């Protein structure tokens, strides 16, 4: 395989990661505020179908993406409302919405199956596109991919370098302390959940209007993407940069699977597709056991150098969830 083919392949990796990125960053923001939006799989499917349908009907890509965002926001709002105002379980409502979104997308999407609609065109950036290696890789993409680059940076800046972002981390960490500092915790949680939902809703049309153009019902191949995005969110440690790494890694493994399949037939590549899940489980394990007694005991028996390396590795891999994730807040 020559360099050119590899570059094209890797550029494809960046492009296919973009939709997942939208969803992962959206959920990262929502979970930073302390809410779990478990409906991701349903949201993405529904917004994928809805966005395509609107784009097809109106001929406008922009309206298609907007429709997707609105669907994502609506679903997220239902999750927030049932948790914050109605005090029902976020997990239960999110789970049902995941199923409902999926079923609705298949049912309502029948008229739009297997037809071609507007597709987002590529948009190479002048000058930058000609830089050797980096050019073909980063700058010969389409608009959504560029937006995804910017989104990673914006999200990171917002969460870690702005005042409101600091407050966002506060309400997810310890809402009582944020409340004492003057935050309207529940209002902020609504806002951030809906914003997260908007980004999740952007992921759907990013597929059907771009990466995997068109709606093909159950053959669209999007069922499960939401769950994968959820596990990448966790693997990403609620940090946009690390989450982006996870999304790109996932996309890369997909591509690798395809490449290997053509080179070495007989390797079931679907196995690579599920890589995010063991990674997520591993991340969660590390969160909890790095402080566990039995782990310290095992570490103590290792030779000095191995132990130091292991401890460093553990510390780098682990990520702490916002302490009040999933826990409702009452002010009085």
């Amino acid at each position: 395989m020559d360099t050119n083919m590899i570059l094209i392949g890797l550029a494809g990796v960046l492009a296919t990661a973009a939709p997942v990125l939208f969803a992962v960053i959206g959920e990262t923001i929502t979970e930073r505020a302390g809410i779990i939006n478990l409906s991701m799989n349903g949201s993405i499917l529904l917004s994928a179908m809805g966005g395509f349908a609107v784009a097809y009907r109106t001929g406008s890509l922009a309206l298609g993406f907007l429709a997707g965002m609105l669907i994502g926001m609506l679903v997220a709002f239902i999750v927030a409302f049932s948790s914050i105002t109605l005090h029902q379980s976020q997990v239960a409502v999110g789970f049902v919405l995941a199923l409902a979104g999926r079923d609705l997308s298949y049912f309502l999407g029948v008229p739009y199956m297997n037809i071609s609609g507007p597709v987002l065109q590529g948009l190479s950036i002048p000058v930058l596109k000609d830089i050797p290696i980096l050019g073909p890789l980063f700058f010969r993409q389409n608009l959504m991919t560029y937006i995804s680059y910017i989104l990673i940076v914006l999200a990171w800046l917002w969460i870690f370098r702005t005042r409101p972002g600091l407050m966002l981390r506060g309400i997810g960490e310890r809402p009582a302390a944020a409340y004492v500092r003057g935050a309207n915790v529940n209002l902020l949680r609504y806002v951030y959940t809906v914003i997260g939902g908007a980004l999740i809703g952007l992921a759907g049309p990013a597929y059907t209007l771009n990466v995997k153009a068109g709606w093909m019902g159950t053959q669209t191949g999007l069922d499960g993407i939401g769950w994968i995005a959820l596990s990448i969110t966790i693997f990403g440690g609620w940090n946009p940069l690390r989450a982006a790494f996870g999304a790109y890694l996932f996309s890369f493994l997909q591509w690798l699977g395809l490449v290997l399949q053509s080179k070495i037939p007989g390797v079931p590549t679907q196995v690579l597709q599920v890589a995010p899940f063991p990674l997520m489980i591993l991340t969660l394990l590390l969160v909890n056991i790095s402080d566990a007694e039995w782990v310290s005991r095992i570490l103590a028996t290792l030779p000095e150098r191995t132990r130091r390396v292991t401890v460093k590795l553990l510390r780098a891999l682990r990520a702490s969830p916002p302490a009040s994730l999933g826990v409702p807040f009452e002010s009085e």
Partner: protein
Amino acid sequence: MKKNTWINLGFQAGALVLALLITTLILVAVGAPPFKAYASILSGAFGSINNVENILITWSPLLLTTAGVLITFSAGLWNIGIEGQMTLGAIFTTGILRLLQNTQLPPALIIILGILAGIIGGALWAALAGALKTFGGVNEIFGGLGLNFVSTALTIYLVFGPWKRPGVGSMSGTQPFDQKLWLPTLPHTELSLWALGSSLLVIVAVYFLLRGTHIGLRLKAVGKNSKAAFLMGVPTWQYSMFAFLLCGAFAGLSGAIQVTSVYHRLLPNISNGYGFLGLLVAMLINYQALWAAPIAFFFAALNIGSVQLQIQYQLDSSFAGVLQDLLVLLVLLGEGARQRFLRKV
């Protein structure tokens, strides 16, 4: 207290009415005549003996997963991993059947061993999720979710790899088993009375377990307040693990039945959403085992009936799913509304 019961019934009925209203609107939106569509579903469900048999075939695995999930919900656990547990049951059953199919053992014995293997497979997979939770602190929702996908990957690996059909592996699964290894069914159908009987037995057993045994009472205590349960002497993590194991066993049995009586092979997505559907049923019946069988039957009927909808009106059969999901969603939201209503009153 009487007034409260009426209020409760009112909200539940309201949820049903609202759900039907919304689905009617949806039907109108896709251009289908609503009442004719409902009639079509009814006829698709009960119109012929064949249809009714299909409902019963669907009812079995759903009863088993619902029963299992009732146990884990009782212990306060969200066993989303039940899909994977069913899949592992199917995998283990297929494995044993493949192993023993060419030996001299009597077929009945092979089938029984296969089903036992399925039960064990499901229980083991559930134990994994349970261990991750108990010893690793991994929330069973994410542990279960991850293991679901791993089980899918495992299935695909087997179907396209070591267990593939002679020639090329395909999505239609492994080489079907010889007829002698088929669970006996009624003539001309895939309905196995063994399957139906055992699942009904299980749901009845679960009902009595939860209502009338010490184990059930302790599970309930662990689920509602594990701190208090501990202080009263209940070994909490052991009971949690037990709940996982039992649910996994039922899920595994369900997978085993799918292999031996319905598909006669292992294929990808053999769990077919029965696990999640069981969760929905359990949520809808508010975890009261008494209503499990009828509501599961209702859901199974919807599934079968909506196939007719597809044939007659070219609508997608996911309509059944839409109605089921909306019902549960509205019941959940209604519960929240009811609690607020009662607080103000």
